């Protein structure tokens, strides 16, 4: 067997960081990362970015050495991605926060509202309904993180957890403060408005879940394959005919429902900010689909049918 040699240089300074000899030609980048980790224990594989070109794209862990455009001695460039944290950990933390924080406001824990309201409950039944919906939403997200989602990336940069938690926890507190406030004003159109809002909310929660299941089934366990999603027997997935990222579409719908239910400006604002972020993500995903698949259905829009 003709062995390969691998040298790893720092992408910025071009210093030689590591020289590996007797590397099997069919070794993967993942295996090379493990070998590099042995000589540099502070850089565990998840924080290594290995590229052919100092400014190029990261190579994938699955890429095989002999299939890359390198000679007998492969030269790779290394960039430190910084401390990493697993996606699962981030999701669980950022979703548990809103769940618990909202409940603190719902139960009117001391030091939030005036002392005479401590541990009292709202007299409006919509406030109880809103708490159930909000809690259901985040429990659903936690369970999906644990049992449904199949992540492409294992990790993300550590600083993201602070950014993401500030966003979710901050907004949860802001919304919960007003919805559970002793001076809360229920929706103008009363029962009709609340009923419609609940229907929209539940419909979109089921829709969002259906999409997550459909996406999970596209990908065999432990793999990172990418396929075009198509409508399944579940009617909630038929929206795939018109939209690339219907999970975001349904998520928007859920929050619109919740806004209608609570008639609360901070909720509307949270919905708007979330919508902007999801649109950015949807457009990116849509572009990736178009780039990767020649036969991608042309009728689809990123997030809103025909519009966006």
């Amino acid at each position, binding site marked *: 067997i003709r062995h390969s040699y691998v040298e790893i240089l720092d992408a910025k300074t071009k210093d030689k960081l590591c020289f590996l000899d007797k590397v099997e030609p069919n070794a993967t980048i993942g295996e090379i990362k493990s070998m590099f980790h042995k000589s540099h224990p502070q850089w565990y594989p998840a924080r290594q970015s290995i590229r052919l070109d100092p400014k190029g794209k990261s190579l994938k862990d699955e890429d095989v050495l002999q299939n890359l455009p390198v000679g007998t001695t492969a030269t790779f460039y290394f960039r430190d991605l910084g401390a990493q944290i697993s996606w699962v950990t981030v999701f669980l933390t950022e979703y548990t926060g809103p769940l618990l924080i909202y409940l603190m406001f719902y139960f009117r824990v001391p030091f939030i509202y005036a002392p005479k309201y401590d541990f009292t409950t709202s007299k409006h039944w919509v406030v109880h309904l809103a708490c159930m919906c909000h809690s259901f939403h985040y429990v659903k997200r936690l369970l999906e993180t644990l049992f449904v989602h199949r992540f492409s990336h294992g990790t993300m940069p550590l600083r993201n957890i602070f950014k993401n938690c500030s966003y979710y926890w901050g907004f949860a507190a802001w919304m919960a403060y*007003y919805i559970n406030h002793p001076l809360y004003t229920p929706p*103008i159109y009363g029962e009709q408005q609340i009923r419609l809002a609940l229907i929209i909310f539940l419909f979109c929660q089921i829709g969002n879940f259906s999409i997550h299941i459909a996406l999970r089934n596209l990908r065999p366990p432990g793999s990172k394959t990418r396929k075009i999603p198509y409508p399944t027997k579940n009617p909630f997935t038929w929206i795939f005919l018109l939209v690339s990222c219907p999970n975001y579409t349904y998520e928007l719908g859920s929050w619109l429902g919740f806004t209608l239910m609570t008639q609360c400006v901070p909720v509307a604002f949270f919905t708007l900010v979330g919508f902007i972020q999801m649109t950015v993500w949807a457009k990116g995903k849509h572009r990736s689909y178009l780039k990767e698949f020649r036969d991608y259905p042309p009728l689809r829009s990123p997030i809103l049918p025909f519009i966006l």
Partner: protein
Amino acid sequence: IAGTSKAAHSDVAPKKKKGPGALATAYLVIYNVVMTAGWLVIAVGLVRAYLARGSYHGLYYSIEKPLKFFQTGAILEILHCAVGIVPSSVVLTGFQVMSRVFLTWAVTHSVREVQSEDSVLLFVTAWTVTEIIRYSFYTFSLLNHLPYLIKWARYTFFIVLYPMGVTGELLTIYAALPYVQKTGLYSVTLPNKYNFSFDYHTFLILTMISYIPLFPQLYFHMMRQRKKVLGHVEDYSKVE
């Protein structure tokens, strides 16, 4: 917060990108010339009013209209970044322009009682000198004939002007606090059908606090830019 560091990084960024086209360049030259002229008008207005009255007091009223017009006009600069004819960050530019606009309209204009404060003169003066230098810097850069003096001024005057402007701004916001609290200006209380509340008084205090982390960052960024741009005096003094 004074906008002296606005687009500073674009001046030293290696010119890899193509840059604005001929039409965009012509427009930007006109824009920057107009802005330079506008702030010169304000400068002259301040000087004349001072000479006429013989005191620093109440000079705001003599330049109120052009100040509002030209400072608000700077919003166009956000558009320039968004469209791509200026290679600066939309977010950074947006933040700096809007903080100026906020001080002009939401504080000085809205709270009549602070308009006669000397702190207003402090930041208006800082802004005026800064903007005259900054807009002429851009004008000359676009025409590829940047006198070293202007470049030097842009990267040196901020050392004094920036803290001066920040001091004026903070003192002005502080002066506005009691009036805002008394009148409940721009504030919304519960209960209301939008289930929303906003206390402008608290918001102003939080704004003042935000200067603590933000001002040093912007200031030291400009310091670093200064070293980069003016550092190689021997090599670059004849170039441009």
